[in-house]
């Protein structure tokens, strides 16, 4: 028993040390958000004199984070709903449906999953400009659906390929057509895979930066990460205000992560590279 404790103590100390190294910077940011400009000099981890929300109020209203927040919600919801729905259909087609040509089409979609955003941003700017879609929600929504369905299709294809074949055949015997088989028989089984897909695409869309930076010039259409970057350019030294803004940007993904962390980690360990 003693030797077991002797083994465990150093392991826990090590875990705690490396966890603190992750947590302390985030905790320091959290404390800073409640401080005043003068308090910040008193030490990074000193407690704020009072837990007042003045910095949050100022970021939310004066900094227009209320508008950025709304924009991020609209874009993320649209991208997540459309991408997940389309990915399920595409994965079903690749995994279970008769489809001549799927062998050469699959690598084509794999390509979209592997290329960085930098590879598409230049033509997208001019192309969306030509369509009159630059500086609109569509400029953020459509390209991110395109990029998300490539990963989503790979993810759902591997689910449908491994779905129990006899169940699918039994459904066909019972007179289900393909559409009914998908939504009545396979959908319940697919829920864990789909949950993972939802949280990953939500996180990627919420945090996306390059597209929103380049394709949106109208301040009232900015998403949170870009809004925060410009905010930082304006209030470089006002750490409390920046900290409050940063917490507003981070909070939704952290909440979703804590609620669905099992799905998150499963998806990212599954080799999800995009981000």
């Amino acid at each position, binding site marked *: 028993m003693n030797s077991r404790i002797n083994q465990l103590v150093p392991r*826990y100390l090590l875990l705690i040390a490396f966890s603190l190294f992750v947590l302390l910077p985030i905790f320091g940011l959290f404390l800073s958000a409640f401080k005043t400009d003068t308090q910040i000099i008193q030490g*990074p981890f000193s407690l704020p004199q009072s837990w007042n929300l003045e910095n949050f109020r100022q970021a939310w209203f004066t900094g227009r984070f209320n508008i950025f927040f709304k924009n991020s919600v609209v874009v993320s919801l649209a991208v997540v709903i459309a991408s997940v729905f389309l990915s399920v259909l595409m994965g079903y087609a690749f*995994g279970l449906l*008769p489809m001549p040509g799927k062998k050469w089409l699959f690598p084509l979609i794999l390509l979209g999953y592997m290329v960085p955003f930098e590879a598409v941003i230049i033509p997208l700017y001019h192309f969306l400009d030509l369509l009159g879609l630059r500086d609109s929600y569509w400029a953020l929504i459509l390209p991110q659906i395109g990029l998300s369905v490539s990963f989503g299709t790979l993810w759902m294809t591997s689910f449908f390929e491994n779905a129990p074949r006899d169940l699918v055949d039994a459904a066909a015997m019972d007179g289900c057509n393909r559409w009914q088989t998908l939504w009545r028989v396979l959908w319940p089984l697919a829920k864990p895979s789909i949950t993972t897909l939802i949280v990953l695409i939500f996180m990627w869309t919420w945090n996306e930066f390059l597209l929103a930076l380049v394709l949106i010039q109208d301040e009232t259409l900015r998403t949170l990460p870009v809004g925060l970057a410009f905010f930082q350019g304006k209030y470089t030294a006002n750490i409390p205000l920046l900290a409050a803004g940063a917490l507003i940007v981070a909070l939704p*993904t952290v909440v979703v992560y804590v609620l669905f962390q099992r799905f998150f*980690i499963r998806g990212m360990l599954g080799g999800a590279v995009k981000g």
Partner: protein
Amino acid sequence: MRSNQAYPGENKWKGWLYLLPGLLIYLVFTFYPILETIRTSFYQWDGFSARRVWVGLENYRVVFSDGQFVSAFVHNLVFIVFFCVLPVLIGLFLASLLSRKKMPGMTFFRTVLFLPQVISMVVVGVIWRWIFNPQFGPLNVLLTAVGLSSLTRPWLGDFALALPAVGSIGTWVQYGFCMILFLAGMQHIPEEYYEASSLDGANAFQQFTHITIPGLRAEIGVALVTTIIAALRVFDLVYVTTRGGPGNATLVVGFLIYRSAFQQNRIGYASAIATILMVIILVISLLIRRLQSGSAEQTA
């Protein structure tokens, strides 16, 4: 991929019906821009005028001879040390120490260590700009408190230190991810392997090199692909922390593409760099996946 039979009386093209809506958006807003980037890299264009001039490989010649791309790419290679090599080593070290024993509370530590992965890079940049702040940043405050005030620096403004300073942010983001990936992989290595090798007199280090490392081949592959690509395509973090400065000390390929295309209107030149970056990333991900599946087949 299995080819699935159509039911009797069913149209064998039915799959295309399900594929089409998503495929269309993908082709127009992702695949076409990829091709267009490659095509544009052979033209000279300022982004405004109607006239694009075909220049063949001239953009590529300039990219490789003007020094900007090469120095930016070298910075990305330095980032591979910070985003990939260090996190993978730290992750392997931690995972091997924690290893196969059940430890209560692991879920909590897992949640914490993975946290930097879900936070926007812009937020991460704001956090670390505060930490590196010359006047009241925790790093300089700490150094002063322990009597090392001679070591305090304006970290992100220092020509020699800005690159490793930004790089170390990458290490902070990635090591928890690597460690959790490896811990998950170690669950699948049968305990008997370790027991049998102990009987044969293998020490902990031999077990690590002969059982743990080969057993984690797939996870190490995923970690390498993910973190190397993160190091090669880094943009947000550099944009928020240094904008490539001071001078060009932290200029990376992603930022060079952005600056050339959208601040200097050198569209063809920027497209050539984007094409090169895309090819490098594709080759690396295919290479590592090939190596992985190749060695998996050998042992299978």
